[in-house]
């Protein structure tokens, strides 16, 4: 944790506008030249309940949510206050204050809405006593009253922004500029008055805190505030994707929504259909007809896609699927992150898997890897899956806007022309040899693919084993040739990926110890690695993105170079460590696991602590994580 950082937590009920206001606040800080990172915590309900968003802002990079936080803006849950709804929601207006105190750092600031949370309630939770113990600085403000005076009650978030700005000595002009872009006339004026009133009232306080806005210069270049889902959608559009079909499911709905709103502008099609089997089937059909297509879901919906996924593998129809993980099994915890669908995406569907699976580690990797997924899927006629999670789906981070300024990919992949079909090897009865064993003018194992409508390219695609012309065949020799050809494509793909370098390394090359992770908590792990090295440890990390085909050489080299390696993942059964041992067949005694599966992502300090106790052989001090020693230990 650096001294130069603000972690601002805005807490209230679902439906209170927490999400929008935190986004505007993060954007304002970003525009003022700070690096920002947001973290969302919300329940699976539409109104009420306890929800918060954290905005972390620091001058030199913010790659994770950080540890705890240092500024609480507790709005009170307005929906709980409505007497007609009390029976359903319960008396929860205090929760945004009471439920958030455990993570607040010493010396932190608390601003709460005294218009919703009264003195009696505050006394109930011994706030005064706790504030004294922890050196917190508490500022009650009637945010609701301010909002009502100038506009409507819903604007109290902005009163809180005004108070925040005054307490941190922050210039409100960037935030007001965003309001100006969002609202017009009356609504804008009311909101600006609310902000200003909050600001002025807070200036009158006897301010006792030390926390201030981190130093920052002017932004060097335009930044974009994007989530993993935004980046996936941009990448898909730039990869030439023009068809998506889906069915809503948290947290996958984000990508589906962004694509639905934008794909038509690009001349593409977005369809909501009856279920996930249909969603992946429509994408498969559209792709078969020659349009780059995708679908996706979260774990439960992805389970339904196992049928079309297997058909895509067997019929060698390219398609890209996104799997946005949430905590399972079954319905699990719909709005909480977990990485327990690893084996699900690798192996679901009957028979041997032949698919490409990537797990991006941050927003930029989301963009890069969805593009690579499309490229490989269409070059190699194979399904490609991008697996990420509720954490990366929702967290916003600033990225250089120019990062996304790249050529769109217009290449349709390995499709033959009508001229090539006319010259192609033919089956004795005149059918096009779509599944030729040894086509020599392309990538290893890739057979010539025609598209319906092309002259002379007619073929049968089938989920049955089939011969070169596509006809159903149970001939043992053909079976082995076709299986080997399909699975052999993964070897060529591995070679291409080795040249791309999807894995991300962090820390000194010659480090003594290693930490391995995959997917969304890569930034958190890297932050922990920096702290460990600063504290005198010798540690490096690798964030693995290629899950299938597995980056055998690169990971082997990493593991050979370290004494021991801690594998950090958000699940209870160490799935990635298991995959690594299965793929490499060695290193068992070197690999121990740090696991977390309570629904909250890792904080950097937890990884530091987990690493220290793995080296010292000590019990973990906190019970929200699990340590699993190396095989034989």
């Amino acid at each position, binding site marked *: 944790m650096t001294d130069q950082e603000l972690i601002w937590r805005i807490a209230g009920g679902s439906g209170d506008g927490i999400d929008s206001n935190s986004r505007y606040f993060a954007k304002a800080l970003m*525009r003022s030249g700070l690096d920002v990172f947001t973290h969302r915590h919300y329940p699976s309900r539409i109104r009420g309940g306890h929800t918060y968003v954290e905005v972390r802002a620091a001058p030199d990079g913010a790659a994770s949510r950080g540890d705890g936080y240092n500024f609480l803006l507790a709005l009170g849950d307005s929906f709980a206050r409505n007497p007609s709804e009390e029976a359903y929601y319960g008396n929860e207006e205090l929760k945004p204050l009471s439920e958030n105190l455990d993570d607040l750092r010493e010396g932190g600031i608390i601003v709460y809405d005294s218009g919703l949370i009264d003195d009696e309630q505050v006394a109930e939770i011994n706030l005064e006593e706790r504030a004294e113990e922890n050196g917190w600085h508490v500022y009650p403000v009637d945010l609701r009253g301010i909002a009502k005076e100038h506009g409507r009650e819903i604007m109290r978030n902005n009163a809180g922004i005004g108070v925040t700005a005054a307490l941190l000595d922050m210039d409100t002009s960037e935030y007001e500029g965003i309001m100006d872009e969002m609202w017009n006339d009356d609504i804008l004026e009311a909101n600006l008055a609310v902000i200003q009133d909050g600001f002025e009232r807070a200036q009158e306080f006897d301010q006792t805190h030390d926390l201030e806005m981190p130093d920052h210069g002017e932004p060097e270049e*335009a930044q*974009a*505030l*994007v989530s993993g889902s*935004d980046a996936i*959608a*941009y990448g898909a*559009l*730039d990869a030439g994707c023009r*068809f998506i079909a889906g069915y809503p499911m948290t947290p996958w709905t984000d990508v589906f929504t962004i694509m639905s709103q*934008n794909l038509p*502008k*690009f*001349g*593409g*099609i977005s*369809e909501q*259909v*009856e*279920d996930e*089997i*249909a*969603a992946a*089937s*429509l*994408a498969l*059909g*559209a792709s*078969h*007809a*020659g*349009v780059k*297509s995708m679908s996706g879901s979260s774990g439960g919906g992805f389970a339904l896609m196992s*049928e*079309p996924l297997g*058909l895509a593998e067997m*019929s060698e129809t390219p398609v890209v699927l996104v799997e946005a993980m949430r905590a399972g099994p079954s319905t699990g915890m719909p709005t909480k992150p977990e990485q327990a669908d690893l084996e699900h995406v690798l192996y679901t569907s009957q028979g041997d898997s032949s698919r490409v699976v990537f797990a991006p580690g941050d927003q930029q990797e989301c963009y890069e890897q969805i593009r690579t997924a499309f490229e490989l899927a269409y070059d190699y006629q194979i399904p490609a899956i991008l697996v990420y999670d509720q954490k990366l789906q929702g967290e916003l981070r600033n990225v250089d*806007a120019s990062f*996304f*300024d790249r*050529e*769109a990919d217009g290449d349709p992949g390995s499709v033959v022309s009508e001229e090539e079909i006319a010259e192609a090897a033919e089956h004795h009865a*005149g*059918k096009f040899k779509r599944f030729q064993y040894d086509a020599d003018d392309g990538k290893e194992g890739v057979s010539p693919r025609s598209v*319906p*409508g*092309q*002259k*002379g*390219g*007619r*073929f*049968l*695609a*089938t*989920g*049955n084993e089939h011969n070169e012309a596509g*006809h*159903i065949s149970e001939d043992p020799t053909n079976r082995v040739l076709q299986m080997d050809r399909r699975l052999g494509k993964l070897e060529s793909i591995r070679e291409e990926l080795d040249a791309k370098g999807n894995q991300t390394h962090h820390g000194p090359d010659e480090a003594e110890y290693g930490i391995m992770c995959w997917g969304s908590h890569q930034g958190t792990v890297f932050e922990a690695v920096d702290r460990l090295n600063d504290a005198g440890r010798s540690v490096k990390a690798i964030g693995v993105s290629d899950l299938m085909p597995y980056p055998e050489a690169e990971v082997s080299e990493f593991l050979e170079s370290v004494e021991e390696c801690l594998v950090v993942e958000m699940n209870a059964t160490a799935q990635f460590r298991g995959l690594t041992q299965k793929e490499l067949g060695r290193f068992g005694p070197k690999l121990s696991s740090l696991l977390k599966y309570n629904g909250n992502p890792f904080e950097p300090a937890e990884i530091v602590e987990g690493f220290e106790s793995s080296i010292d052989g000590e019990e973990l001090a906190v019970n929200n994580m699990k340590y699993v020693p190396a095989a034989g230990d």
Partner: protein
Amino acid sequence: MSSDVRFTDFKSDKQPTWCPGCGDFGTMNGMMKALAETGNDPDNTFVVAGIGCSGKIGTYMHSYALHGVHGRALPVGIGVKLANPDLEVMVAGGDGDGYSIGAGHFVHAVRRNVDMSYVVMDNRIYGLTKGQASPTSRQDFETSTTPDGPQMPPVNPLALALASGATFIAQSFSSDAQRHAEIIQKAVEHDGFGFVNTYSPCVTFNDVDTYDYFRDSIVDLSEEDHDPHDREAAKEKILEGDKEYMGVIYQDDDSVPWEKREGIDQDMSDIPDGAPDDAMDLVREFY
């Protein structure tokens, strides 16, 4: 398309493995005739089928074809048609494929009314798995897995289609080659989702719903005073339940295919004017 297409152009060199006398021979011939009569080029035709005896149809027809997963032929066919509206898409399946495992897709495909045709080869039995009850089997039809019969009323597929907002509902009998081909042709020509339930008897496992049974009980609507544009009359016929009608039972002449209504019936390689080149235009909104 050229008008000199013959129905044999749609025939592959593969001999069907259906049992001798199977209704599916006649069903398939009618499909090929209808496609040829409507001037479709086999290179521009896409046939999708699921699993079971009916699923093999793509093997025996020489067009572009996909033999997919049980019950999922319709969503694949919709994806193909939306991606390339110039293709003639025909989906085939059995009664299990369409009304049991794929019943959900059937309802929504009917609702969506994409311009394609759907032929269900209804033999009221599961043949390829050797004689179990299907969703259209009679209530007391005893089979190895339903020793007392299913003890549930059979699905009325025509009523299911009507309730789902169908714009074309027809029924045919594979043995009446001429009428069957005519009816399929009307489904192909229909602007929207052309649904035909075709009686296609199983000679091996179904000794109740036989050729003789259908010959004796079928009522040809072309010989009756039935107006397929009269929805009320169609509803009455469909819900009667005790007659086996043949012909076009309902057709909405005002049907507009979904892709036309949604304005997505153009070739997807035609990029609309003013379309963004890449995602950078979207990124700007997030500055």
